[in-house]
């Protein structure tokens, strides 16, 4: 029997490093895997683990997420008892503030946390892609009577500045958690999944001088106080999608002959609201392989090693390779899209090439975009017969008039005039 648990999903942060992909949405709302949003994984994990009382903390650009969650029907979370609630910052009579950090978001919702019939509070980072049964985590947490049990994984890459490194002793206790160390010790990192005993978390949220950050101001002090903080290792596929590269790699993983994340899993389906789209159709000289193709897609060109979301149209003679193309984008005849992430409703004109030339790192954000990917923002329009170099960002809403030229040099960052003025 699962003890009563309140789940809180952190989904309010702005992901600057996603650039145009994160402008109108948070990372948890990012489309993933041809028909899902990233948060679908956390929500599906919850319901498969028998956890039906969920709060989603939102703040930055929440429209996309709110529209997606709705009343939670897709996850059977439209429930009489429990269900899903969207927790937005709100105005109060005395002090009013935006959420100043993850801990502050919990503090501002301490009524919700106090009132919930919960023995434990499960806090999830919303930008994770993983399939995880929380039941063993909960069982271990109860059995060992820990105040905090945190899930650990092995770092999927060596980008230490993105992770919190965990030092675990021989008995499975957490000795320390170092956020973004210059030189990491070991490869065990925090998975962004924390199970707290409700009583202690509630107490800490009442402290008058509490800082705004969950890890720095609550979790690290808990570990330092010598109270029981346990590690629960997870050895399945786990990725966070906070950067363009991490998102791309986590997506391309699905195209491997034997993907480490199996979406065709009848025992652990990932739920998402379905769209009323026709089945995908390949016709004319269309030809697709090594790809995921969603309903509503129409393929008349060649598609290789790519993910097509609902309603994408690939015109005759066009080539889409090693790319991720979001909903309703049109790739017109003879266009080439190579190693690109194209947001919704974009349009690549006839004979245009996206992802051309040398992979010179992006001039404005060399750290964020240097692996040769090209990113087109929502509704961007690439004129016919033009060439867009690699490591280029074309911001959302960019029109032909914003480009000024048909040769966009590699490493460029093109913004729409209307947005620039803001």
């Amino acid at each position, binding site marked *: 029997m699962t003890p009563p648990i309140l789940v809180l999903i952190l989904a309010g942060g702005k992901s600057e490093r996603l650039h145009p992909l994160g402008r109108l949405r948070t990372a948890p709302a990012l489309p993933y*895997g*041809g*028909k899902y949003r990233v948060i679908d994984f956390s929500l599906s994990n919850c319901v498969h683990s028998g956890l039906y009382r969920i709060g989603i903390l939102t703040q930055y650009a929440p429209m996309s997420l709110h529209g997606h969650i709705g009343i939670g029907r897709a996850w059977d979370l439209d429930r009489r008892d429990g269900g899903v609630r969207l927790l937005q910052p709100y105005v109060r009579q005395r002090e009013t503030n935006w959420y100043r950090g993850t801990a502050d978001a919990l503090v501002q919702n301490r009524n919700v946390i106090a009132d919930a019939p919960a023995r434990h509070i499960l806090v999830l980072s919303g930008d994770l892609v993983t399939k995880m049964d929380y039941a063993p985590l909960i069982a271990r947490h109860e059995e060992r009577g820990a105040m905090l049990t945190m899930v650990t994984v092995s770092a999927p890459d060596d980008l230490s500045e993105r992770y919190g490194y965990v030092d675990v002793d021989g008995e499975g206790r957490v000795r320390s958690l170092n956020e973004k160390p210059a030189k990491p010790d070991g490869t065990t990192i925090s998975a962004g999944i924390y199970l707290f005993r409700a009583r202690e978390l509630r107490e800490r949220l009442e402290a008058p001088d509490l800082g705004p950050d969950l890890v720095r101001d609550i979790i690290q002090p808990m570990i330092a106080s010598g109270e029981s903080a346990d590690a629960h290792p997870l050895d399945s596929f786990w990725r966070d999608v906070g950067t363009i590269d991490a998102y791309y790699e986590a997506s391309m993983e699905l195209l491997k*002959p034997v993907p480490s994340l199996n*979406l*065709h899993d009848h025992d652990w*389906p*990932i*739920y998402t609201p*379905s769209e*009323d*789209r*026709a*089945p*995908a*159709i*390949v*016709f*004319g000289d*269309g*030809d*697709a*392989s*090594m*790809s*995921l*193709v*969603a*309903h*509503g897609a*129409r393929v008349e060109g060649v*598609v290789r090693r790519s*993910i*097509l979301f609902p*309603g994408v149209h690939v015109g005759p003679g066009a080539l889409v390779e090693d790319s991720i193309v979001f909903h309703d984008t049109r790739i017109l005849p003879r266009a080439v899209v190579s190693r690109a992430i194209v947001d919704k409703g974009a349009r690549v004109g006839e004979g245009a090439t996206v992802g051309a030339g040398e992979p010179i790192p992006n001039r404005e954000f060399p750290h964020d975009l240097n692996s040769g990917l090209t990113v087109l923002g929502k509704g961007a329009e690439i004129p016919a017969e033009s060439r867009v170099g690699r490591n280029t960002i074309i911001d959302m809403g960019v029109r032909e008039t914003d480009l000024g030229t048909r040769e966009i040099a590699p490493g460029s960052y093109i913004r729409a005039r209307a947005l620039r003025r803001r």
Partner: protein
Amino acid sequence: MNRVSYAMILAGGLGSRLCLLSEKRAKPAVPFGGKYRIIDFTLSNAVNSGLFDVGILTQYRPLSLRDHIGIGRPWDLDRKRGGVELLQPFQGWQENDWYRGTADAVWQNWSRIDERDTEHVVVLSGDHVYRMDYRPMIEAHLERGADATVAVAEVPLEQASQFGVVRTDAAGWITGFLEKPKNPPSGRISMGVYVFRCAALREELWKDAERDTPHDFGKNILPAMVEQGRVLSYAFPGYWQDIGTLDSYYKANLDLLSAEPPFPLEDHRWPTFTPSTENPPARLGPRARVRSSIVTHGTIVNGTVERSVLFPGVVVEEGAVVRDSIIMGESWIGPMAVVDRAIFDKRVHVGRDARVGHGEATRPNRDCPEHLSQGLTIVGKATRIPEGVTIGRNARIAPDLVEEQFPAAGVPTGEVLDRA
């Protein structure tokens, strides 16, 4: 009083000409077009036309249909006012009877129409593939003050004898109604899409119920109403396909694959609604070669697929070829197997190196030559075809067979493999 607020869909018939596909499900529940059931087209037309109060008349094997319709959520028919209701035959205080025909089915459920306070009622068929806005037809019906209005399509003359052929005067009033005539005078046929003035329909149904007739709209009710002279024709110029036979079922599916489909399935202004399955996007593997085909969520292709429709969860293994075929949900086509011009019901399992649809279509099916003569081979639900076996054309393979029930020599063209 509402003028037109209720629609009834006839979905109870046997559909014997669809052979194995409708053996265990009503024809409107037969899977179609990759993710739909045939009735989705009529139901979606109804809600897209603003008809949100629908009764579905069922009789023959309604379970599959009932599961599909549920509480009507995909069509926004889970409503406080209106919604969808399945109308099964029931026992009454004095009379108990199965529905004796389409007209009798409506007559037995007349209270449904009565209590709705609607002046006119729309009567539809659940086994047609088309996209139609019923509103202009209803408007014409009201404007002209008709007792009944019949949607009319134009089919090739040689097909007209399968339908009710209509004759009209210059003003569009129907002057003759010939049900399945031997020598049809024209290809203008009734689509089985009607709007009736309730009072006029009630009178005809009442009279017909007392007579010894097949109690059929096409055979009895409409010809009688035409006599009264107030039956209007409404020409529908769009694509309309009655799914009466295996050949028409096959053709209507393949019509969707053409570069210029008869109507776009993907149309956000007129979506075709259906319950969705929880499946990931179609996965096309490294060796996949997909040409002119429909693939749905949950399919996995590693072989070659040409001019075919794959339903959710179909797996085509490496080296396998599926050509000109319709493969329903969760079927598995083993490595190096070849499937050519076949219709598979759900969960058919084709062993490695097997061949389905082999050779020339030299003769029609022994048992049902009238339905299986064009070279199609049909395989029933959940049958397991053994490795390396060869099945000819125009063959019929029963559902639920296992490998041991197949003769080693395979099944020749025109043969039947039934349960022992």
